[in-house]
């Protein structure tokens, strides 16, 4: 019975006994979740518009952050570097569309998925070649991002919130809001949704697929840049981030591959779930369960809802 006590009762007793720790853990999870959600958002944008499962989103985050920091190291002022990075991401979007997507149009999903692997490898090598493989410090101060922490007393202890985390949450939410408005209200947004619904129907009413693809890859690049700045400011800009970006995959399938709200809710569930799991249940298993807990949570959800929480219902016909 001891083991049941440890699994089902003890963690909750701990939560009740030290609410400040619980709040702190929830906050850490929330921040992690927002960043996962941002990466997942990049995936969803591209998947919706082109049906490409873009494995390169993780490396795009690293590449964008590296470009920004690398340019600044060469003496470019911070905000000029930011502008130049946006241009680089645009060129990347155009390049991907011209050299990869256009020749591979009408190929099966797995081939396109593989091609994004090629992009990933290319960007890893290219990024290291140009900017070096060493971790870099994000130019948070130059971009007027806050540093330091706010501490709250109360709840029988104190809770400390990093200012950069607060900024990450605000910028992340802002970005999602802007994208939502962009999708719902603008002409291009409407075209994007049309393409997402049906490529052929969109083509037949005169929407240029090529243009749309450049736009979504560019949008995903901007999202990647924002994610890279935030994540880089919390730790550092390194290629290890690319592996962390794999965490966006369970977020995606949890939320549904085609749903923007899904990406956000999924991100928060995974972020908070894995921090809580690691903190309260991790010691039972010897720690380090953060590396797989997200996938197992997602797997558990999938068995009951194969299309994810907000995904479109999968209808199969013969």
């Amino acid at each position: 019975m001891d083991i049941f006590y440890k699994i089902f009762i003890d963690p909750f007793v701990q939560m009740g006994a030290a609410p400040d720790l619980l709040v702190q853990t929830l906050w850490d999870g929330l921040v992690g979740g927002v960043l996962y959600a941002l990466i997942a958002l990049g995936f969803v944008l591209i998947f919706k518009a082109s049906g490409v499962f873009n494995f390169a989103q993780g490396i795009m985050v690293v590449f964008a952050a590296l470009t920004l920091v690398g340019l600044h190291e060469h003496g470019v002022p911070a905000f000029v570097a930011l502008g130049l990075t946006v241009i680089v991401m645009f060129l990347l979007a155009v390049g991907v569309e011209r050299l990869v997507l256009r020749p591979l149009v009408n190929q099966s999903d797995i081939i396109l998925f593989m091609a994004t692997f090629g992009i990933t490898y290319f960007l890893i090598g290219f990024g290291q070649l140009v900017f070096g493989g060493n971790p870099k410090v994000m130019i948070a101060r130059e971009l007027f991002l806050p540093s330091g922490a706010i501490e709250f007393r109360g709840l029988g202890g104190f809770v400390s919130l990093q200012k950069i985390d607060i900024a990450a949450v605000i910028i992340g939410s802002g970005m999602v809001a802007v994208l939502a408005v962009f999708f719902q209200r603008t002409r291009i947004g409407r075209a994007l949704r049309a393409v997402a619904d049906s490529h052929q129907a969109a083509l037949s009413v005169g929407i240029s697929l090529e243009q749309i693809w450049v736009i979504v890859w560019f949008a995903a690049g901007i999202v990647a840049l924002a994610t890279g700045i935030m994540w880089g400011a919390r730790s550092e800009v390194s290629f290890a981030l690319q592996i962390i970006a794999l965490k966006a995959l369970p977020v995606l399938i949890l939320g549904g591959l085609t749903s923007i709200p899904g990406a956000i809710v999924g991100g928060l569930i995974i972020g908070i779930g894995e921090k809580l799991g690691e903190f309260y249940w991790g010691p039972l298993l010897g720690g380090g369960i953060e590396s797989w807990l997200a996938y197992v949570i997602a797997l558990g959800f999938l068995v009951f809802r194969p299309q994810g929480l907000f995904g479109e219902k999968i209808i199969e016909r013969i």
Partner: protein
Amino acid sequence: MLYREVGQYKTSYAADMAVFPILQDRIGVAIILLAAFVVIPLVGNEFLLNAVMIPFLIFSLAAIGLNLLTGYTGLLSLGTAAFMGVGAYACLKLTTIFPHVNIIVWILASGFFSAAIGALFGLPSLRIKGFYLAVATLAAQFFLEWCFIRIPWLYNYSVSGAIEVPLRTLVGVPVTGPTATPVTRYLVVLSIVVAMTWVASNLVHGRIGRMWMAVRDMDLAAELIGIRLLRAKLLAFAVSSFYCGVAGAMMVFLWYGGAEADVFAVDQSFLVLFMVIIGGVGTLIGSFFGAALIYILPIALRAIPEAFGLPLHPATVEQLTFVIVGALIIVFLVLEPAGLARLWQIGKQKLRVWPFPY
């Protein structure tokens, strides 16, 4: 002119269904096998055997394993490396507990452990499909990787946390461990790979293979014609994991001679998936082509600057390799999305009608 089937009549159903219906193909296969079994061990130096041929064969086997699952059954998996790891750790435990049993028996038997784990993680495949399934298999990948690090019993409580391969002999000749010669290890690997390729070829050309392909092409329709989906999919997971497990056991016991858990990291899974797709999804020969291209290409790329005497920093070469491999993957996909196996087919067809255009 040489490669033509004129005058070769098929007089029975069996002859018509043969894997190599053309005499020249059979001769070609015989020559390749002869070269692999006799010529390479005789003339090959240690570098060729140890750094090129052994890993090439092992990766080919892993790619065949994944191809059975992804190419023939249409279930995308990103957990290949973890299943390879299960094989390696199972083999280590088996040979530790029963040190007197022939190591080759244990290498093959470790595949069954891998198959069991694979079937377990294949259970969700009945409900989820496509990329959703791929991410579900990532759960297997990360969970098993965590087990390899966190459960000391698996690596015999060794201080380094790594597998240390013990010395095992076969009729007095060391097969694994530090004193085994590359030639012996090469021959063992080659024999296992050839035998298992033969089995795989029979599987995919027979009832089971057709069942898998029906599931791949449309699982609902397959179910309607009386294929039991759960069985077919789990069987695919089990057989695929069996192949991967044996490949993993060979990788540690006959190639590295000792390994840590990070050789079974997710990168390795992606590498095997590259091999399958570049080689040709749903072809056995493609697995060999893919393994050759993806594994041998970086070696060749590293050798080129040296050959020209260019003073490049090793790190730069490494980065260039990434760039070139990435670009080549895209180029190959654009040129021939069906993979190298398709190019091989086209080449053979051209050769058949040569010197005429058609």
